[in-house]
């Protein structure tokens, strides 16, 4: 039974996902040749933990990309989520208890504004999310400049981001739970089906009686919430929130989703691919950083490797 299940699983898997996982193994082998410590469990678990933050953020990005949209408001949504969660923790035990949900809620709010812009005002997502990012930044600047809000993470945030259960980082467990939920939502719920449908052809989805605007709106709100949750975890990891802590997550999130075989045009892509993309990007960044290459060389290698991997499996079909 199991002997049969495995080849079936591999046969059904997207070649893009398989290649992405192949690239991960290749990277680890190269890293391992450079230094044995790249294969040490500590290092791998550490990467898994760090990848989880990007993984949570990329999950939201993937939802939006499946719709054929993009979310450029990630940087300041991450920051806002982190800062708001920490800030609310200053208000007594209730504040501490509400810290995480409140941070996520703020992200959902930003996402909802994106959603209104994209779904109801029909502004291209690339530009609404750019604008809301600027607005979120503005609000955070005023907020931290006016007085000094509490910005240290709560114990719960610390625990989620840095704790372990049986040696497995909690962050990775969270990502796993979130991932399973996402796979379920995308594959088995009418929301997920609608997301794919809208990504392929919104007009047809609308005429099929789907409330496409609501779905788009929910997807953006979810993306905002997940970015903010990523921010909350990052704050837990660093044990505090800080301005512009989300800057480093926008391009990697997009790259991870696309390296995982999700079409940037929407309608096609699997969550396993995103998982592979996230791990790939995290490992790549980490190995390049530790290999002591000067920044210039690192950037060039990073760029070239992404292009190379995409050329391996990320090409659109030829017209003929």
């Amino acid at each position, binding site marked *: 039974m199991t002997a049969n299940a495995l080849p079936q699983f591999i046969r059904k898997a997207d070649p893009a996902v398989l290649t992405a996982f192949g690239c991960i193994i290749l990277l680890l082998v190269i890293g391992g040749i450079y230094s044995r410590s790249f294969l040490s469990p500590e290092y791998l678990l550490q990467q898994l933990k760090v990848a989880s933050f990007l993984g949570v953020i990329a999950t939201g990005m993937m939802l939006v990309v499946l719709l054929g949209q993009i979310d450029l408001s990630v940087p300041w949504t991450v920051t806002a989520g982190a800062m708001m969660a920490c800030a609310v923790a200053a208000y007594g035990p209730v504040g501490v208890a509400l810290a995480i949900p409140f941070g996520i809620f703020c992200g959902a709010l930003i996402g909802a504004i994106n959603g209104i812009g994209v779904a109801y005002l029909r502004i291209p997502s690339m530009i609404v999310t750019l604008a809301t990012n600027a607005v979120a930044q503005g609000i955070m600047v005023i907020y931290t400049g006016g007085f000094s809000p509490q910005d240290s993470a709560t114990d719960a945030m610390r625990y989620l981001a840095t704790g372990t259960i049986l040696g497995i980082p909690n962050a990775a467990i969270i990502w796993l739970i979130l991932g399973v939920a996402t796979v379920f939502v995308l594959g088995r719920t*009418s929301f997920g089906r609608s997301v794919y449908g809208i990504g392929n*052809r919104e007009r047809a*989805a609308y*005429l*099929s*009686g789907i409330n496409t605007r609501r779905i788009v709106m929910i997807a953006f709100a979810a993306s905002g919430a997940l970015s903010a949750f990523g921010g909350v975890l990052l704050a837990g990891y660093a044990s505090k929130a800080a301005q512009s802590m989300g800057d480093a997550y926008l391009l990697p999130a997009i790259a991870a989703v696309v390296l995982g075989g999700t079409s940037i045009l929407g309608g096609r892509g699997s969550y396993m691919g995103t998982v592979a993309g996230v791990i790939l990007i995290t490992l790549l960044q980490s190995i390049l950083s530790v290999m002591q290459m000067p920044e210039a060389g690192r950037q060039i290698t990073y760029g070239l490797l992404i292009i190379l991997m995409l050329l391996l499996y990320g090409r659109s079909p030829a017209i003929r």
Partner: protein
Amino acid sequence: MEGAGPLFQMEGISKSYGGVRALQDASLSIRAGTIHAILGENGAGKSTLIKVMAGVVSPDQGQMMLGGNPVQFASPAAAMEAGIACVVQELSLIPELSVADNVVISNPPQRFGLIDRTAQRRIAEQSLLRAGAGDVHPMALVKDLPLSRRQMVEIAKALTRKPRILILDEATSALTASDVSKVFEVLKRLRSEGLALLYISHRMNEIAELADECTVFRNGRNVASFPAGTKSDGEVVQLMIGREYQNVYPEKPTAQADAKPLLEVQNLSWANRLHDISFGVKPGEILGLGGLDGQGQRELLLALFGVLRGLEGEVKIEGKATKLDSPASARKKNVGMALIPEDRKTEGLMLPMSVRDNLSFASLDMLTVRGIVDKTKEAQSIDEMVKLLAIKTGALDSPVSSLSGGNQQKVVIAKWLMRHPRIILLNDPTRGIDVGTKQEIYLLMRRLADQGAAIVFYSTDYAELIGCCDRVLVMYNGAVETELLGDEITEHALISSALHIRPKENQPRERVSR
């Protein structure tokens, strides 16, 4: 002018898409100065054949000869160079460019290396005129034109290339009778000028009027070639579908029960395009919408389906005034409406998605429990529909884009029938569909009506309206011009109302634009 050897020959052409054999050892031979018709049911491989001819698709096997010399086309541009122009089934116009830009697209006039807009305009005007589309403004954007006008532009575009071989793949499927007759004049003139024309259509009467020679395709092969007029329609259809051909239209019920109208429309108006429309449809009734294309029939259907904003007037379902402001509200249980949209590729289907996902897409709300899809129920419903409509597909998990036009259309219909709708709006559902499938659809419509559905059926094909409908509303300029009942539905009545023929007036035609 005839009598010489064939101008173009194809031999042993095969083409497979994955597991699907679109063409299998097909051959064809066409002569200059003739119109060669290609017939075949949906998915027979006609479009694939001409795509090979036009350099759009490269064959897996086989040779092509042009004027006796072997040729191979690396791209559409190469085929064009060789004098083959193509009006394809999937329109090849660029929506954001103007009509003039599109017409001269393959070889725009240039001055100093830049496109000469004045000359381009002149050429475009001439071509449009030649194609019988002088009413299209050359500066209008293609995306703003109705489908029928786009088809005319497409023909004008092909003519601009001064081809030796002109291929029309269901070029007339979106056209109304008057446009068709204009196009026919053009085609006949071209034939007399010595062109070879390849003509694909599912409309037998068109082929009878035009063709000199016919070739029938079935399952990717050419099964017979014969001079036009040497076989009866019945024989031809039998060749196409490989079985006996019977009367196309199902029996109409003799008298309607005196039921209350299920759908009622009162004084419906919209944005200068629909004017004061009132009618009702009873359960079991098939109400036809007739008239020239673009007289508001599509808008009427969209209005009923909740797509249009700012409607005036009232829509009643079972006598209750009901506000329909989205397809979502129109498909609700208490309304139970379904719309088979105009353009299946952009409005009916998500082409890259699987047949399965497309089939269940409109019924997700009924197949889910608290938002979660019930897989068993879904599979059951899908099986039921595939059987009901005899959808031909390799695998349900293959993308719906790999189905032939007719089967795609069946998927669109099936996805709505899965909801068991009470009110069914059909927007030209048989466009580009072979006779066999058409017949299945007519039968289905009648069966649904007999089961108590109210059907509103718009068609550009008069014969269909006559054959299927219990009642026909002929529309003109956004209003109901005439209502024809039972035996009143004749070709003569349809055409004269459609053309708004009153003794004195002679309406000048406006330039078409939206």
